[in-house]
């Protein structure tokens, strides 16, 4: 693993050594970092190898790409050029993206990324920056360009990392949620906010349906993309106007089902790890998991070995995901 939970002083020291880094931390911590070859995003929740789940503003999570990559460039994207994010990725390597939550670029990426040119052709991994839950509505999520010292609320930063010829990058996910045995939901349009839905082909109001069925909205909707399970997490039900808000958009035509309950997250995690992941810890360069898993599964103080990393407001493995662990492996070939 190349991820380390560090004091601000220790992280500053390795930045000054000229290492190529990705940082995650509270805004107050990231603002103290010296300029260097790094990008960062705001989030104060982490899974660490020593303490398990932790929330702190005093330390940062560092992903050290030095020695893994042969070169890295930092690029800024917003709605005007984000559609080129896959096509402009390194010919041999991967792109690492951080987007502040709820900005226009986040919404645009969430809705449109799968239709961007060369989607899936080059690896794109990353996460959505957030804030401490006590700061919701008071502070805004941000991304930092370590080379220039700039912080952005709007747009996205991408670290375009080149790999040596004998190495390849591969993105994986671990999703504990599976489709349940209940109704099939199909939406008439793409979007984060939804009113109507086809339930087994019958048009209904989604909010009324959820309330009538008393569905647990801590469990996501799950779509099956040729065997890859993709979650859409519920944010809120607004009874007054009959709308339901999600943390990622639903897409028209895709068949969703409400997830089966997950009993004990850690137990389920370990079973899934054995069943689905044949990985060696030293090949894992980066991983992150979802703040909703941290909250709903009470991961504070709990470990998810061999995965550590920030607990984010959204995970990116080619496209935006929810309630999913994503990871990047670098293989020798």
């Amino acid at each position, binding site marked *: 693993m190349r991820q380390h939970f560090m004091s601000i002083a220790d992280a500053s020291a390795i930045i000054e050594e000229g290492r190529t880094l990705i940082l995650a931390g509270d805004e107050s911590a990231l603002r103290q970092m010296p300029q260097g070859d790094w990008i960062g995003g705001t989030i104060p929740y982490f899974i660490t190898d020593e303490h398990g789940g932790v929330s702190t503003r005093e330390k940062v999570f560092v992903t050290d790409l030095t020695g893994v990559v042969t070169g890295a460039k930092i690029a800024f994207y917003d709605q005007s050029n984000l559609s080129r994010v896959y096509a402009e990725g390194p010919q041999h390597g991967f792109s690492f993206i951080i987007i502040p939550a709820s900005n226009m670029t986040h919404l645009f990426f969430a809705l449109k990324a799968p239709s961007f040119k060369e989607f*899936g*052709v080059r690896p794109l991994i990353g996460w959505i920056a957030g804030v401490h839950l006590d700061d919701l509505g008071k502070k805004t999520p941000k991304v930092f360009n370590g080379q220039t010292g700039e912080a952005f609320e709007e747009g996205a930063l991408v670290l375009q990392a080149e790999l040596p010829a004998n190495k390849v990058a*591969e*993105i994986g996910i671990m999703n504990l949620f599976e489709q349940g045995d209940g109704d099939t939901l199909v939406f008439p349009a793409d979007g984060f906010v939804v009113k109507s839905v086809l339930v087994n082909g019958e048009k209904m109001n989604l909010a009324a349906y959820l309330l009538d069925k008393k569905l647990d909205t801590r469990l996501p909707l799950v779509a099956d*993309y*040729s065997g890859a399970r*993709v979650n859409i997490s519920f944010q809120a039900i607004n009874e007054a106007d009959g709308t339901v808000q999600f943390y990622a958009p639903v897409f028209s*035509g895709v068949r969703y089902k409400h997830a089966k309950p997950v009993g004990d997250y850690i137990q389920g995690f370990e079973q899934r790890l054995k069943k689905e992941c044949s990985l060696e810890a030293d090949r894992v360069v980066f991983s992150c998991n979802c703040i909703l898993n941290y909250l709903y599964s009470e991961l504070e103080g709990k470990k998810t070995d061999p995965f550590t990393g920030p607990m984010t407001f959204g995970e990116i*493995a080619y496209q935006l995901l929810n309630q999913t662990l994503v990871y990047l492996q670098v293989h020798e*070939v």
Partner: protein
Amino acid sequence: MNLPEKTHQGWHDLVTGRKVSALKSLAVRMLLGRLTLSVQEDSSPENIAASIDQLYEVFAKNAHTPSIQEDLKTIFG
């Protein structure tokens, strides 16, 4: 394993959903999930060809990735 030509029936079967395989590559699964939906909505030869082009590109540009190699064997034997 070498990449079969785009004219190979295996590509057509994949994007039309005629053949469902347990695949490893996340990029392939994510893209294929969308392509099969698109082809269900528009099964014109042009859309099928465009879908095969997109899928082929993922395999071609990631030919050395372990999961892609496994998927090639799964799909084309």
